[in-house]
């Protein structure tokens, strides 16, 4: 094989990625166009109606955007008290030890569990608990979905944060100890600020994961098409409304679902882009 042919083959292979990206954007936009044209872009975003009575179809994305943002933010909130300790456990306190490697294997395995199995566990184990505790009568809802979602994103946030915590130079830590600081003080006042931007960016990427999570949320959020009024009420996220209705939809409803897909795609793309940029910057400094 000569060099020219070799380079051409590599180039063609590399073209697949831009083609896929272009195809995704093109397909989403053309198929969502009907919905945007019919309802108007901003009306579609801000309307909370979702009714498919023939002749009086009304579709708006607001309940699902709210549902997605709410589940994601709650999941983030629940995830921090666990992922941060894991990160410091693996990256500082027990760095390089056997227990640390066991804990990272455990979190790696958590990341490997398929989302449909998380959904089952949430439905058959967590939901009865929520009902027994009288938190909500039906058991499913925003809160239940967020709790399971939180477990799912812990591994992503923790392993990346740990990487940044490990990178804090030993010189700095020893300097701080030499001034008489306890380990807790070194962690809070030196390691955390120095690794801060890296830790922050790992949470941005975890958000990117949570936004698009489909099966778990679909199985646990309760699937109602209203704007959730409290964290215990039921709802739907952008991903779950698509999973629920895409199979049976056609015409305007199909186009509206694809429009929701387009919005979800854009939000995750922007969040992931910001996260990756911040990580790059944190790695350099």
């Amino acid at each position, binding site marked *: 094989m000569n060099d020219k042919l070799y380079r051409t083959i590599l180039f063609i292979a590399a073209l697949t990625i831009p083609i896929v990206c272009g195809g995704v954007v093109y397909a989403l936009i053309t198929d969502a166009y009907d919905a945007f044209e019919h309802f108007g872009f901003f009306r579609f975003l801000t309307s909370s109606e979702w009714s498919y009575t023939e002749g009086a179809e009304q579709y708006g994305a607001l309940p699902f955007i709210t549902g997605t943002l709410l589940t994601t933010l709650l999941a983030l909130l629940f995830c921090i008290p666990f992922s941060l300790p894991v990160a410091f456990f693996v990256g500082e306190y027990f760095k390089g030890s056997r227990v640390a490697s066991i804990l990272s294997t455990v979190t790696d395995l958590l990341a490997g569990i398929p989302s449909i199995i998380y959904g089952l566990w949430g439905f058959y184990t967590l939901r009865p608990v929520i009902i027994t505790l009288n938190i909500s009568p039906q058991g499913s809802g925003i809160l239940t979905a967020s709790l399971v979602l939180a477990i799912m994103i812990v591994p992503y946030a923790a392993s990346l944060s740990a990487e940044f915590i490990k990178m804090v130079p030993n010189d700095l830590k020893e300097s701080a100890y*030499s*001034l008489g*600081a306890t380990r807790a*003080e070194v962690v809070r006042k*030196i390691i955390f600020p*120095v690794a801060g931007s890296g830790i922050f960016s790992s949470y941005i990427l975890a958000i990117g994961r949570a936004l698009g999570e489909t099966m778990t949320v679909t199985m646990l959020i309760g699937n109602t098409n209203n704007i959730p009024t409290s964290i215990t009420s039921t709802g739907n996220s952008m991903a779950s409304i698509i999973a629920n209705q895409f199979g049976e939809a056609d015409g305007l409803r199909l186009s509206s679902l694809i429009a929701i897909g387009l919005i979800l795609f854009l939000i995750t793309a922007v969040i992931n882009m910001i996260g990756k940029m911040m990580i790059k910057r944190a790695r350099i400094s």
Partner: protein
Amino acid sequence: MESIIPILEFKKTCVSYTKQTMAVKYVSAAIERNTITAIMGPSGCGKSTLLRAVNLMHNLYSNIRVDGEILLNGENILLMEPIDVRRRVGMVFQRPAPFPTMSIYDNVLAGFALNGIHLSKSKKDEIVESNLKNVVLWDEVKDVLNKKGTFLSGGQQQRLCIARALAMKPDILLMDEPTSALDPIATKRIEELLLELQKKVTILVVTHNMGQAKRISSRSMFMYLGELVEYGDTETMFSNPEHERTKAYLIGKIG
């Protein structure tokens, strides 16, 4: 009374890494108040290991053991709380390490912030100014106190780190090859600074540079393979070493 007790005394001090040979073997020596004492020796001789023992740095690593006694003003520090000892023993490391998230001002005060000590603004200003003056850095940085310490040159950063250690008013200042990462001009300035500082604080400095030991120290230790071979007045040691090994090192046969 106080003058009889040496400020720092090693009594059969040993440092060992688990399952490996001892890095420091039965070192006994008393350090004199308000002097600069240099610890010399070829690399791997245990000089840094001995120095770090005084600041209980070895307590941070579970695989290192320190035995014997190290007396600070007559008290055995191995039996004391590390955070208490470290406040009374300052340390400056090989590579300048100002805290990158803190300003120059906050770096000088880092010891207080880390120890959770609250100070009034005027007290803070006073500590920052006097300590930066002590290390002859004040005139260079007084207008940029709110800038990050990492913007300074290597020599300036190291002087900032000395100021940070001095701000805690330590009884003794440990320095682990403080100029090995610096250029000759910055080195010269630090050496001049140390000669000035010994009036206020006792200094124990590890150096791999014999010239430096000769220029700044009044007392010298020579270590070899973990043992303290010779300890005495710097002048005497350089002109008339007692041991063959010291002689060999000084004329460049080992090291």
